[in-house]
């Protein structure tokens, strides 16, 4: 029988052929006959009351077919806090917020009409910084949290800009610090950055008179979008159809509705017509989503031998004008705040703060990047105080199987130490004394680790439709965005059914006929959809067993079912590739396998105050990276020579796909460490274009990236697999920061570590790490 294994094979991505021939269809490539083109008039102020909007001249522009303002359409939406208008009404909360949307026959007419909008605003005081936002008497971005529907894990603080206050406590923090021989603390911050997917946001909407809403979009989570839209538009779920296109990069940035609300509001004005809008690169910076600024204060207490006794973390995350996923980012960051270390006494306060700035939302890493930048930098500071090797300090405290996590879970399937050791070996950590090259550059090494959870509880489903030639169509609701998830799921189905990869067709996602998927985020699809797809494939085999029993006239229990193979008691047999020959399929019901997977039963609800739980997360991702860098003391420029990255993928279903995810994440991490930031003058972005907002080109990436896959099978994962979409980005930044501190004897506390900051740090080079005396 044709038993190719498929699991563990680096199969070429099933969509790569379309992508190298230019035939993959992205949303911007789609058009409908007589479609209209949208354009947006945006707020010129960070914070202002809308007094009047005069549209008379707009309507006079030739070709204009629809105009809509927030007043016409005062609806709110939101994943966790329902606070965001389709178009601003009452007031605007960030510069660039959509205020008026216009649809016209051509993009040119629509753009022309935007210039004719006359709006009068009354400016309100802007809130452009998290610390200002939480200060006593700060102007409120949202007047009253209680007016919004808010998910139950979120704790807004009434009368403030604190949209969520996350708290976690374990043991007795004060006692832990009293026990400490050394206490070391610091504050680390990150600027606002953007995903800069090469494809900008885009959507097409069509609304029909019977209430149907059709949306085409490169969205990460089509079902989450459907659910939000149905709630906002007060429609039954069946009336909202989200048809997903290929996605030209997402990284968390396409997890939110951005263009969709605008085109839907317009399409409702012109029933039957399709309305299309593609964001320009400037609009992408201005009003898609960003990773908001963060400030993290970390305080560590340790015995002289390095044993951690207490950790205190206080985090401020800027979620901007609307909450979107901000509170969830705050939650996940909070969970991961004390790092992959055994700490008996912990206190975490995480504040998700509203400001009148761009909307802070999901970004690969989901808060853990910011947190790890802080605690892993601080761990190196502590090592220095203790005169310990930073690797030894980490090894001494790292969690292992059986350790109790910050949230009270007995951990299993842990590989923190294994990852640390693997990268230490790969970078030759023992020989890490700084070296001065003949050109006068300083070469040093740095190391960092992390732990990151996936979203829990959550659910996934899959349908495997068997065709009578033994091929299958697989329907899922999660999105391929370049991470090769569809290939990996096809591999699992092919494996279970004993068929070739060519026999598996992955159906494009459409909420009208695909099964439900919670989210394409949190590095969760391989694990969750994988489990569902394996069940669906097994269900196909079960149904075939029943059919074979009828055809062969035997007791179904007497038939053995293997991977894609049935064997009867009398020696009868059938394999999927030879299904037709076996003639067990006649005019019976079609074989449609279904599988669902949910972590609701595994999840143990958290204590609402301390957030302790026996099983708060379905799995944790483990990894470590070590880097070697070269610093030019003349120019301040940092060149990353090598990154060694060890990540526990559980089981590499497709090793090349795992390498790709880690390599891509590392190069993005290098961008975050060294070059990326949105620069502001008040509420104005000064670099809302790709000339001035630099992302890594091939000249910026590490000269060598060595990826080490750790396969520490997870007992609940499909074939042991876990996720790997996000984690590669997390340790890169602190590892570079730690190497830099080795090189220049000074620590940079705010990203990015640009040459001018390195030069400045070199100038002051006083003491290494600031620490209070105890």
């Amino acid at each position, binding site marked *: 029988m044709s038993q190719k294994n498929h699991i563990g094979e*680096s199969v*070429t*991505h099933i*969509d*790569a*052929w*379309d*992508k*190298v*021939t*230019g*035939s*993959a*269809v*992205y949303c*911007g*490539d789609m058009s409908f006959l007589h479609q209209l083109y949208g354009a947006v008039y945006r707020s010129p102020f960070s914070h202002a009351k809308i007094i009047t909007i005069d549209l008379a001249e707009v309507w006079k522009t030739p070709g204009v077919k629809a105009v809509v303002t927030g007043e016409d359409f005062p609806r709110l939406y939101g994943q966790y806090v329902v606070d965001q208008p389709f178009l601003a009404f009452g007031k605007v909360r960030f510069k660039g917020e959509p205020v008026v949307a216009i649809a016209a026959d051509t993009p040119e007419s629509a753009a022309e009409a935007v210039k004719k909008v006359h709006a009068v605003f009354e400016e309100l005081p802007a809130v452009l910084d998290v610390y200002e936002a939480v200060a006593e008497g700060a102007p409120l971005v949202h007047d009253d949290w209680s007016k919004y529907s808010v998910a139950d894990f979120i704790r807004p603080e009434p009368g403030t800009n604190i949209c969520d206050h996350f708290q976690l406590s374990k043991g007795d923090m004060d006692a832990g610090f009293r026990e400490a021989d050394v206490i070391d603390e610091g504050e680390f911050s990150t600027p606002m950055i953007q*995903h*800069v*997917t*090469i*494809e*900008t946001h885009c959507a097409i909407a069509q609304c029909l008179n019977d209430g149907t809403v059709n949306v085409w979009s490169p969205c990460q989570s089509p079902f989450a979008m459907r659910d939000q839209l149905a709630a906002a538009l007060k429609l039954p779920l069946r009336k909202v159809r989200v048809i997903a296109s*290929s*996605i*030209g*990069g*997402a*990284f968390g940035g396409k997890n939110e509705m951005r263009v969709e609300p605008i085109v839907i509001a317009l399409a409702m004005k012109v029933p039957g017509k399709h309305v299309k809008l593609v964001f*320009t*690169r400037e609009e992408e910076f201005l009003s898609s989503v960003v990773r908001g600024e963060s400030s993290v204060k970390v305080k560590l207490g340790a015995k002289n031998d390095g044993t951690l006794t207490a950790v205190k973390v206080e985090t401020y995350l800027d979620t901007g004008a609307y909450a979107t996923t901000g509170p969830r980012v705050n939650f996940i960051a909070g969970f991961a705040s004390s790092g992959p270390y055994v700490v008996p006494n912990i206190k975490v306060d995480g504040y998700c703060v509203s400001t009148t700035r761009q909307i802070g939302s999901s970004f690969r890493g989901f808060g853990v990047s910011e947190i790890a930048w802080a605690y892993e930098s601080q761990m190196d500071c502590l090592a220095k105080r203790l005169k310990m090797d930073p690797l030894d300090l980490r090894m001494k405290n790292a969690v292992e199987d059986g350790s109790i996590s910050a949230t009270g879970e007995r951990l299993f399937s842990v590989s923190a130490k294994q990852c640390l050791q693997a990268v230490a070996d790969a970078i030759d950590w023992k020989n890490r004394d700084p070296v001065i090259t003949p050109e006068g550059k300083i070469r040093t090494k740095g190391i960092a680790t992390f732990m990151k959870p996936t979203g829990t509880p959550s659910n996934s489903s899959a349908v495997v439709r068997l065709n009578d030639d033994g091929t299958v169509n697989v329907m899922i609701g999660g999105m391929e*965005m*370049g*991470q*090769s998830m569809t290939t990996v799921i096809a591999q699992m189905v092919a494996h279970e059914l004993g068929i070739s990869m060519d026999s598996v067709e992955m159906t494009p996602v459409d909420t009208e006929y695909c099964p439900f998927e919670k989210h394409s985020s949190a590095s969760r699809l391989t694990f969750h959809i994988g489990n569902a797809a394996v069940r669906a494939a097994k269900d196909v085999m079960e149904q075939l067993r029943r059919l074979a029993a009828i055809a062969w006239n035997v007791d179904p229990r007497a038939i053995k079912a293997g991977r894609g193979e049935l064997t009867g008691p009398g020696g009868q047999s059938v394999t999927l590739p030879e299904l037709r020959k076996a003639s067990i399929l006649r005019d019976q019901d079609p074989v449609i396998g279904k599988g669902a997977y949910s972590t609701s039963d595994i999840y143990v609800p958290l204590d609402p105050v301390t957030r302790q739980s026996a099983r708060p997360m379905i799995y944790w991702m483990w990894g470590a990276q070590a880097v070697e860098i070269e610093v030019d003391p003349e120019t301040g420029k940092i060149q990353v020579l090598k990154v060694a990255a060890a990540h526990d993928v559980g089981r590499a279903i497709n090793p*090349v*796909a795992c*390498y*790709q995810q880690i*390599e*891509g*994440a*590392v*190069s*993005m991490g290098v961008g975050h460490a060294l070059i990326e930031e949105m620069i502001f003058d008040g509420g104005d972005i000064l670099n809302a*274009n*790709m*000339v001035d907002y630099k*992302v890594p*080109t*091939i*000249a910026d*990436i590490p000269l060598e*990236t060595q990826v080490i896959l750790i396969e520490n099978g997870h007992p609940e994962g499909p074939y042991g697999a876990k996720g790997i979409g996000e984690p590669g980005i997390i340790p890169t930044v602190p590892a570079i920061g730690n190497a830099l501190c080795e090189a220049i004897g000074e620590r940079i506390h705010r990203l990015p570590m640009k040459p001018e900051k390195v030069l400045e740090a070199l100038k002051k080079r006083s003491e290494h790490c600031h620490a209070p005396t105890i």
Partner: protein
Amino acid sequence: MKEIELRFRLNGEEQRLTVPSNVTLLHVIREHFGLMGTKEGCGEGECGACTVLMDGRPVTSCIILAEEADRHDIMTVEGLMKDGKLNRLQQAFLDEGAVQCGYCIPGMLMSAQGLLNENPHPTSQEIRKGIEGNICRCTGYNRIVNAIHKASQDEGDS
């Protein structure tokens, strides 16, 4: 807007059309000819997603006026396949795992093709230089370099 008449070769075929004088080559390729393989990422010459070949050399079609293509030979990603088969660069991109979301890939392929047209056996340094203007947010580039290197070593035309 003034209309202009253009004549050029597009993926080997003679084309004639009349367009407003201010439209870009990218616009003509996508909107007039419906060749959607060429992407727009920035519209300002910075990302390389819109790269096509003009007389065998890579140009960013978002900042070139259609007028400038008059009487030239233009090739887009759709022109790479021959006789229904992938060319060696396309095949190498598949084999080396150089493709993720795919949005930068048409531009990347055209820059690579332009490089190989000029320099059939580039060094790794020359390859890196050749794709410096093409931004990929997904891959980390090394697999793309490997793919171009592999294609440059394969024999055969293309």
